[in-house]
C-alpha cells in the first residue's frame, strides 16, 4: 500500500528562492525502507519534512504538483513519527527523567497508562538506553539525546518513521546496532531516512534515492542506484573505494567481473588480493 505519493512535486521556501525540490515523482510503500542520500543542499531534509507534512507550516513556502497521503489501516490518516536533523529541539525538558520524556509521545496520542508503560519500556530496550532511563534529559551527551528522541518516535508506533541523519552523533557501535533495529522495525512501519553513511545504507535500505539539486538522479536497490552517474553525490564503503582506486591504477585482479563499484566486502577483498 502506498503511504505517500508525490507527483511532479516542487517546493520553494520563498517565492524568489530556487526550488529545494524540483519535479519529484516518488511513492513510498508501507513496510519499505528508503534511504535518501546526496550532498548538502540536495533536498534530503526538505523531502523528509514534505513527506512528514511539516513544510505546510512554513509561511512563505510555495509548491507545485501533488502530494497524496493515503489512509491508514483503520481509515485514519497514516501517522508519521520524525527525528529531525536538529533533534536537540525535540526534547521538551518538561520532564525530569528520560523515561517520562519518552512517555510524552504516547501521552499525546492519548494512550492508556498501561499501554504507555509497555511501549516506553519496549522502546528503551530497543534503542538500548536502559542505563539512561532515570537520568535527566538535561545532563545527557549529544549522542544520548539523539537516542532518546529516536526512542520517543518509535514508542509512538507510527505508520511511517522519518529520520533525518539519525546517526550524526552516534558512536560506531550504536550505529551498527541501530542498523539492526531498523531492519526489524521495517516489518511494522515504513522508513524514510536521510543518511549518507554507506554501511548503514547497505544494511538497511530496500531502496536508495539519490538527490541532486532538488531532483532524483537515482532510485532503486542500492546496488542498482550506485552508478557512475550517481556516485559523485555519495559516500562509498571503504572496500568499494579501494577497488575503485585499484581499478584506476590497474592493479585489481585481471578479468575482474566488473561492477564498477564493488559493494560486497568479500568480493572486494578478493579483487584487491590480485593475481595470486
Amino acid at each position, binding site marked *: 500500500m502506498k503511504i505517500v505519493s508525490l507527483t511532479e512535486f516542487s517546493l520553494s521556501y520563498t517565492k524568489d528562492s530556487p526550488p529545494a525540490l524540483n519535479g519529484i515523482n516518488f511513492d513510498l510503500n508501507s513496510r519499505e525502507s528508503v534511504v535518501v542520500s546526496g550532498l548538502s543542499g540536495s533536498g534530503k531534509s526538505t523531502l523528509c519534512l514534505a513527506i512528514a507534512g511539516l513544510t505546510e507550516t512554513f509561511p512563505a513556502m510555495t509548491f507545485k504538483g501533488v502530494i497524496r497521503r493515503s489512509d491508514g489501516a483503520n481509515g485514519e490518516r497514516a501517522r508519521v513519527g520524525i527525528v529531525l536533523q536538529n533533534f536537540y529541539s525535540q526534547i521538551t525538558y518538561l520532564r525530569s527523567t528520560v523515561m517520562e520524556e519518552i512517555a510524552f509521545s504516547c501521552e499525546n496520542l492519548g494512550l492508556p497508562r498501561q499501554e504507555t508503560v509497555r511501549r516506553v519500556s519496549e522502546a528503551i530496550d530497543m534503542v538500548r538506553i536502559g542505563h539512561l532511563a532515570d537520568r535527566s534529559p538535561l545532563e545527557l551527551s549529544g549522542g544520548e539525546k539523539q537516542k532518546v528522541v529516536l526512542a520517543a518516535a518509535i514508542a509512538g508506533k507510527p505508520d511511517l518513521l522519518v529520520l533525518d541523519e539519525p546517526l550524526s*552523533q552516534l558512536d560506531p557501535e550504536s550505529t551498527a546496532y541501530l542498523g539492526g533495529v531498523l531492519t526489524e522495525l521495517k516489518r511494522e512501519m515504513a522508513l524514510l531516512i536521510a543518511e549518507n553513511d554507506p554501511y548503514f545504507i547497505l544494511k538497511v535500505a530496500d531502496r536508495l534515492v539519490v538527490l541532486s539539486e532538488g531532483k532524483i538522479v537515482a532510485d532503486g536497490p542500492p546496488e542498482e542506484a550506485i552508478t557512475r552517474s550517481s556516485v559523485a553525490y555519495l559516500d562509498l564503503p*571503504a*572496500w568499494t573505494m579501494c577497488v575503485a582506486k585499484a581499478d584506476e*591504477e590497474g592493479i585489481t585482479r585481471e578479468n575482474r567481473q566488473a561492477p564498477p563499484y564493488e559493494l560486497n566486502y568479500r568480493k572486494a577483498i578478493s579483487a584487491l588480493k*590480485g593475481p595470486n
Partner: protein
Amino acid sequence: MKVRFENVSFTYDTRTALKNVSCEFDSGRTILVVGHNGSGKSTFLKLMNGILKPTVGRITLGETITDGKRTSELARLCALSFQNPDDQLFAQTVKKELRFGIDNIGRGDGLFDSIVDTLHLAEHLKSNPYSLMYALRRLVTIGGSAAMGTPILALDEPTAGLSLREKKYLGTLLAFLKARGTTVVMVTHDLNFLLPYADDMLLLSHGEAQFSGERDRLFAGKDARDLMRRAGIGYPAYARISSALDLELPAFSAEEIVECLKKKRAGTTRRTNGRHQLEGA
C-alpha cells in the same frame, strides 16, 4: 601549543564524566578524541577551553595552568567549536559570526580571508547563519573558531551533518592548520574520514583514558582491536581491509592501501625476478 592533562577528573553535580585522565600532546599535532556516546569526549574539550574547570587535577596549555584563569583568557589559547552549531551561532550575518572571535581577541592577521576561501563561505557572508542549511551552519561555526587563530583549536564532531563536498573543505582546512602549526583536537566518530589526518589518539571509555599517544603506536599494538571495541568504536574499515590484505601496517585511506599494495607487489616481483636470474646463471 602543548596540551597536558594531569590526573584530571570532572563531576557534573553527581555524575563523574571524566576519571583521572592523564595525557600529553605536543604542539602542532592533530589529535582525535574517540569513544562511545557518553564517554566524556565533549567534557574533555570543554575542560581544555576552560568552559568547565577540573574537579580534581591540573590542565596545562603551553606554559599556562588553566586553574584560576578566566574562560575569556583561555579562549585566546584554545577556541572551541560546539557539537551543536545552533548553540554557537548568534550573529546576524555569517561575516559577523566569523569575525566575532577575531575582533574580540584583537588578532587581524589575514586569517579571516584564508578561512573563508578554504571553507568556501564567500557567497554566504551576507546571509543570516540561521537561514543556512545544517552543513553550512556547521562550517560557519568551525570557521569562526578557526579564524581566531588560537594555538589550539578544539572541534566537537566536525564532520557530523557534512556531506562529501564539505568534508573535503574541512580536510583542506585541517591541512592548512597543520601547516600553521596549530594543535587541533577533534572529538569524532568519523574515523574513516579523519584517521588519515591524525597524529595522535585519545581513547575514552566511561570517562577513563584507555589509550593516549601516537595513532601508529595504537594501531601497531596487538590489542588495538580489543581496545577500540571496548571503547565502543569498533575497528576502522580501512584498518580491517589492511589486515585482510596482509599489509604489514594498517593504512587509513583507499589511496594509502593501493600504494601499499603496489609496493608489496613490486617487492614480490623483484624477488621472483631475482630467483629467475639466479636459476638462469
